[in-house]
């Protein structure tokens, strides 16, 4: 399993491209997961039993959909979503197209994380806000989100790391990215150098994301 430095230099442009593809996929799908998953997670929480917008049917339906999407193997999701992907991005291949499936997979994942983060908030603080006569929207904006901020950021970290893992499967639709490079060169072409390099890049990437997440979560927490 020797590492040939020459090979790394030779394939450096490819590695760079893959790196940016990974960033693209994660960037897009993270953004979608945040934009859609956050409200969904909040909805899951506030419509639950005993909460201020308790609504059992809405809660059950969202919960069910979230569970279903989480049950489907990613590759099947990828296939099932081809029409949607085509509709949204106009293409079914490449990193942008892959981002559609990644987003769909990330939304329920992140929604559950948000829900769990919100559950950690002291119920008393929410009650105090209700007692003060705050509107549901104020409670969400000024109590739930600020109080769960640090925990949600940890959840974003976890989502990013899961997306890194999932994006390795994006090769199926030509999404490219570091994980796919590892599979194509390391696995199909027996290029141990590239395999090791890409795996190291992945490990470093994951560690950096983890540390950045930990640091941010700690830094913004006022407790």
């Amino acid at each position, binding site marked *: 399993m020797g590492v040939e430095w020459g090979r790394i230099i030779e394939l450096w442009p490819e590695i760079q491209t893959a790196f940016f593809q990974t960033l693209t996929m994660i960037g897009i799908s993270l953004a979608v997961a945040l934009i859609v998953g956050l409200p969904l997670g909040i909805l899951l929480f506030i419509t639950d039993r005993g909460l201020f917008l308790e609504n059992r049917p809405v809660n059950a339906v969202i919960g069910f959909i979230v569970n279903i999407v989480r049950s489907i193997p990613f590759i099947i999701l990828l296939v099932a979503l081809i029409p949607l992907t085509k509709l949204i991005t106009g293409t079914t291949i490449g990193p942008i197209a892959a981002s559609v499936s990644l987003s769909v997979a990330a939304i329920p994942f992140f929604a559950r994380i948000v829900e769990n983060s919100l559950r950690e908030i002291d119920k008393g603080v929410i009650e105090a*806000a*209700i*007692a*003060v*006569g*705050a509107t549901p929207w104020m409670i969400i904006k000024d109590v739930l989100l600020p*109080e769960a901020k640090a925990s949600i950021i940890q959840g974003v970290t976890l989502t990013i790391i899961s997306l890194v893992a999932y994006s390795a499967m994006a090769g199926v639709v030509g999404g490219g990215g570091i994980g796919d490079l590892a599979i194509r060169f390391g696995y199909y072409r027996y290029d141990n150098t590239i395999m090791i390099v890409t795996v190291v890049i992945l490990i470093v990437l994951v560690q950096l994301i983890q540390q950045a997440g930990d640091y941010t979560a700690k830094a913004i927490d006022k407790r």
Partner: protein
Amino acid sequence: MIQIEKLTKTYTTKHGTVTGVDNVSLEIGKGEIFGIVGYSGAGKSSLIRCINLLERPTSGSVTVDGNDLTKLNSEKLRKARLKIGMIFQHFYLISQKTVYDNIAFALRAAGTPSKNLKGRVEELLEMVGLSDKRDVYPAQLSGGQKQRVGIARALANNPAVLLCDEATSALDPNTTLSILRLLKDINLKLNITIVLITHEMNVVKEICDRMAVMQGGRVIEEGQVYDIFADPQKELTKEFISSVVSFNVPEHLLSEFTGTVVKVLFKGGVAGEGVISDMLQNYPVKGNFLHGAIEYIQERPLGVFIMELKGTSSDVMDALKYMESRSAIVEVIPNGR
């Protein structure tokens, strides 16, 4: 101000239903400070949380300032809550917002225009003595300071009613005192009705006008604080009172006394009139104070003394009669002789 009628609150748990409040009716007047005491699980929190409908009553009604809250829709209820402040044992401040923002939050809930916000928050901070903590986060405050922020938040929208659920139970006695004084102050200045839950009789003694004692979800005794302290009817009430006004003389000391041991109770202004002093000067008995306490409840003295009286039995009898004639309540305590 507050009418609670036949209020019952039951909880459904996995082990069956639990009755939190059991058919309670109460009336609390405007500007009153009303104390509710009872042991843990008595239903105090359940009751007070029904007053602003944080807990929806299973049956019965709650009328605050003429509005039957149980009949309001959620938007109207929210509006009604603006006029019912609440403070909690554990403060429940937004940990990620500064003191300023915690208070401003309440004002925004009432739709205060933002140009008035700053001035009002500063006024409130002034009132609770925290002007210098404006931009600090709750984690940097002491318990007492946190509770002051809680009070400022509760008062932000000039409520007519202030509900306090064990507002001082997490605080040390000194801080408790300062918070109680602040509440009393607010009550006097703003004529706010205060309902105050506690399990410490000291707190009731310090600031309440009327009180109720709860047990098993029911109100078992209710009345003027002074009257209840002076003449508690229920065993539980006596127990509570004895935790502040303790009349017990150690058993074995009691048995060493040779004279007649009596407990003398003075109500109202009488304690100040020197009944004991007159008695000692008028009768040839020797008095020996074993235990005594004069408490000022709502600034009226309530005195209890346990004395050993020595003298001929007829002199002692006369002395006792004299005291009774001056409206003291006298009780002879058997001391094993």
